[in-house]
């Protein structure tokens, strides 16, 4: 059975899959993801911070030997394409260790290789009719539309999250300030009154 699995693993070399996930990254935390990649596969890592703080995160991508392929600090959004030079387990990590109290939500899309074709017995040299090639081009175009929609959704989510944050802050601070205003003006008057209030100490009576 191991032989069969190895066989299928080699078949997978031709095309592999993509993973797209959105996860929560608590403050002071680091989250790593791993994937086994075969040599020669073209891979793309894209990430975007959706909510939290200044919408930035540290990202680091290492290959199977630990060589750092990509390292950026406090980035909001980036896209990195590379071709795997070695076989092995590639690791990419997102770190929020620089933040003390904001949770972040990070979206990433790690594409490894190309998407599998619709028909498993098809390979690149199979001749397609014009209709079929038209379908393939439309499929690719629609995939890119969906990809743009995802990125738009994330940007809009970011904007909306900032707007809602602003809304609560405006409410909170307005009420707070009105309250402080009242408290301060009343206490000013009270304090002033206390300066002039009748005390046992004499107000005048110089001499005599």
């Amino acid at each position, binding site marked *: 059975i191991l032989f069969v699995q190895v066989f299928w693993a080699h078949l997978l070399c031709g095309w592999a899959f993509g993973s797209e996930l959105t996860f929560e990254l608590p403050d002071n935390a680091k989250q790593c993801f791993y994937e086994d990649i075969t040599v020669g596969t073209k891979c793309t890592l894209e990430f975007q911070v959706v909510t939290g703080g200044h919408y930035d995160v540290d990202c680091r991508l290492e290959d199977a030997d630990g060589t750092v392929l990509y390292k950026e600090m406090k980035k909001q959004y980036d896209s990195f394409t590379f071709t795997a030079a070695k076989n092995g387990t590639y690791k990419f990590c997102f770190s929020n260790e620089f933040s003390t109290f904001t949770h972040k939500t990070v979206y990433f899309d790690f594409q490894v290789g190309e998407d599998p074709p619709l028909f498993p017995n098809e390979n690149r040299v199979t001749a397609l009719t014009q209709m079929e090639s038209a379908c393939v081009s439309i499929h690719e175009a629609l995939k890119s539309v969906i990809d743009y929609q995802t990125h738009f959704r994330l940007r809009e989510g970011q904007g*909306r999250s900032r707007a809602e944050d602003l809304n609560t802050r405006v409410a909170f601070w307005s009420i707070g300030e009105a309250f402080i205003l009242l408290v301060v003006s009343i206490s000013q008057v009270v304090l002033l009154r206390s300066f002039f209030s009748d005390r046992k100490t004499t107000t005048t009576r110089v001499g005599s």
Partner: protein
Amino acid sequence: MLKAFSNYKALNIYALYFHIGETEKKCFIEEIPDETMVIGKYRTQLWDKQTGSFLPATPGLGMHVEIKDPDTKIILSRQYGSDGRFTFTSHTPGEHQICLHSNSTKMALFAGGKLRVHLDIQVGEHTNNYPEIAAKDKLTELQLRARQLLDQVEQIQKEQNYQRYREERFRMTSESTNQRVLWWSIAQTLILIVTGIWQMKHLKSFFEAKKLV
């Protein structure tokens, strides 16, 4: 050939993985329009201290999967085995939260607390199994391709509807902020003027009573 394809698709879930601690809960968010199907597949492996590698899944090591809808109502909360497959269809558009945590107490005994989880979450038209659809509806190649395109377009339309709904929410939030800024500024200015006048009047009458003016 179909069986071969389904085996090959099965290997797909061994793609991305991450490590999870014993009682650690890992949550993933999927922001999706309504009536969208989501299929999640996972596979777990346990760290074996003796061989220094990850063993294939041991039975008895389960994962608890909890899925919440945008109103934080739990729509799925189930225990699965070491390999699991969960699926749900959204009925409200928004952020759905998929949380996984290991329920096993045996982990500390064997593993020193490290569990490897392979996870694959597919959303919308990626959940469709085209060879199966082709077999069921007896479609030709071209018809199958057309079906795939139709599914993609449907997903795009759903996403756009959802986008319209979210933009409306955004607009409402902005207008609410605008209103609040307006009214609270006016209110604060009034409070300022009123308290200023009150202070002056009060102090004036106070000093007059004290015969200082």
